[in-house]
């Protein structure tokens, strides 16, 4: 099996980037810090989404189910006086367990109906969260008691998850799991007939993806110091990771990073002009990607790939 090794020169840019981002977390203004936090959060989420969306070709339109599960789990545990790190790890664990259980149900479906079932799942969870006001605070949301150094936790947590997510994407790609996923994406029946157990690999990637989302949900809860159905299950957080991964180049290692950066910058520019049309922006990106560039920005050979100097087969 061909396992490409990482050259030192390929690590220079990422390392500089991470150092730069770490120092911003230390010295940046609150505006810059929160903008970069959101960016890092979405890099982590888009990478986690892409483990299933890009590597397996299963479109998870209900990804925020895990983000919300993590966020609400964190809020409820913290309310009951559990420490930040304890609550955070349990939030991640819960999301991973939920992903494991759901994979038994969801992976019985073909790709199209998987997409619809996940979308249905998140709409269902959002309305349940709105209704069960005794536990979740309903439409009022649930405030989280002030955590000392919350921005610090959230910022560096998001940075670690973004780096880790990208690393996992790279690691998985060059592993048995990644190759199996690729064969499942290409032709599930053929892969199964050659001895690949599709369910096993699909469930593994789904659990890892859910775990990341759950942790990130917990970090978002820390950062925003409250949880709310709209914020954790709403269309924005549900769709942004999908849009980013697809725009950047689904199934590539740096695609979601590029997609997240592009979308967050576009969104920020739009926000400075008008409070409206943010969903429409996401919708337009979906339409354009779906109609004209199914492989995303990094997927077109010879275009951005060459400009950025990323050789074929590595990104």
């Amino acid at each position, binding site marked *: 099996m061909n396992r490409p090794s990482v050259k030192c020169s390929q690590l220079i840019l990422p390392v500089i980037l991470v150092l730069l981002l770490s120092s911003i977390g230390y010295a940046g203004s609150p505006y810059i810090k929160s903008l970069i936090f959101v960016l890092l959060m979405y890099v982590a989420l888009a990478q986690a989404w892409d483990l299933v969306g890009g590597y397996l070709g299963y479109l998870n*339109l209900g990804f925020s189910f895990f983000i919300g599960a993590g966020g609400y789990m964190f809020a409820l545990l913290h309310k009951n006086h559990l420490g930040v790190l304890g609550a955070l790890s349990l939030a991640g664990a819960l999301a991973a367990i939920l992903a494991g259980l759901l994979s038994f149900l969801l992976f019985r479906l073909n790709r*199209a109906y998987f997409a619809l079932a996940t979308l249905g799942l998140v709409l269902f969870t959002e309305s349940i969260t709105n209704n069960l006001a005794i536990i979740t605070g309903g439409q009022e949301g649930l405030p989280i008691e002030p955590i000392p150094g919350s921005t610090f936790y959230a910022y560096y947590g998001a940075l670690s998850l973004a780096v880790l997510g990208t690393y996992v994407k790279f690691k998985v790609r060059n592993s048995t799991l990644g190759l199996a996923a690729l064969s499942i994406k290409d032709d599930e029946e053929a892969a199964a007939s050659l001895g690949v157990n599709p369910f096993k690999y699909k469930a593994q990637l789904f659990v890892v993806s859910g775990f990341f989302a759950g942790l990130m949900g917990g970090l978002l809860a820390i950062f925003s110091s409250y949880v709310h159905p709209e914020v954790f299950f709403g269309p924005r957080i549900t769709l942004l990771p999908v849009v980013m991964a697809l725009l950047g180049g689904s199934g590539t290692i740096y695609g979601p990073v590029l997609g997240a950066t592009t979308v967050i910058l576009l969104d920020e520019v739009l926000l400075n002009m008008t409070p*409206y*049309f943010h969903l429409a922006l996401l919708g337009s990106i*979906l339409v354009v990607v*779906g109609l004209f560039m199914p492989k995303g920005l990094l997927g077109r050979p010879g275009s951005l790939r060459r400009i950025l100097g990323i050789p074929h087969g590595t990104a």
Partner: protein
Amino acid sequence: MTLDPTLILEVIINGVLLGGILALAAIGLSLVLGVTGVLNIMHGQFLVLAGTLSYLIHLALKLNPIILFIIIPPLFFLIGISLERSLIRPLVSRTQSTPLLPSILVTFGLALIVQDVLTFAVGDVAKGIPTHFPPLKFQGLQLPMPKLLSLFSVLTATLSLWFFLVHTSTGNAARAIIQDREGAMLCGIDIPRISMLIFGIGAALAGLAGVYYSIIYTVQASMGITLTMIALILIALGGVGNILGTLVSGIIVGVTHTVVELLLGAAWSLPVVLLLFIAALLARPRGVLSE
């Protein structure tokens, strides 16, 4: 709670009516899915758009609501046809064998655009056309007149649709494509033409359902995607291209919706219906296209 006969009758009428209207929209979605292989997530948005348009026309011109039934469906037929020509056809021809997944992406994007622009233009608030018909009194029971009339016309519309599919050559061609696309092509059926026509009819049906919705209930910008999902439940239960099956499953969903609303409150009917949606998909794991 005592079982009051008026209440039971009302629940049945309301449930069957809701089911009939949903079935109209679902049949449109199901024909499009069967004939073109495109799953149009925009479909619910057609309904919302038609409902909002009806409301605005009614507000501006104070016309008799019945005129809306003459204006809106043809208008949406044209909208459907132009959407098919401009966006759906290139997508289908690019993704020869499997337009399903990319079509979800593109039509989902379109649905978001429409929802957002609609929210910007008229706000994300419930809009309905007020009607004033005296209730029909029958042996001490009070029956709401607009609902009875609508029920009658919804059933008529469904039956004429069934007649169109089974007893006209265009309808037969559409059914042939649903059953066996390549076979239909070999028989000389003009698939692009039928696809365009069916897309128009699908949009017109959603438009018609939208008019009913704005008169009997209310429409709201953000409910489009949920409506598409409800339509998909009916298709999953009833089968693609199966009009009577879709009508029956529509009535099941409609009555469930109404009963849950009555017993647990309006906030719970949506989660129960969504749960039904997930269950319906899981019951047909190979997708609703399989028989």
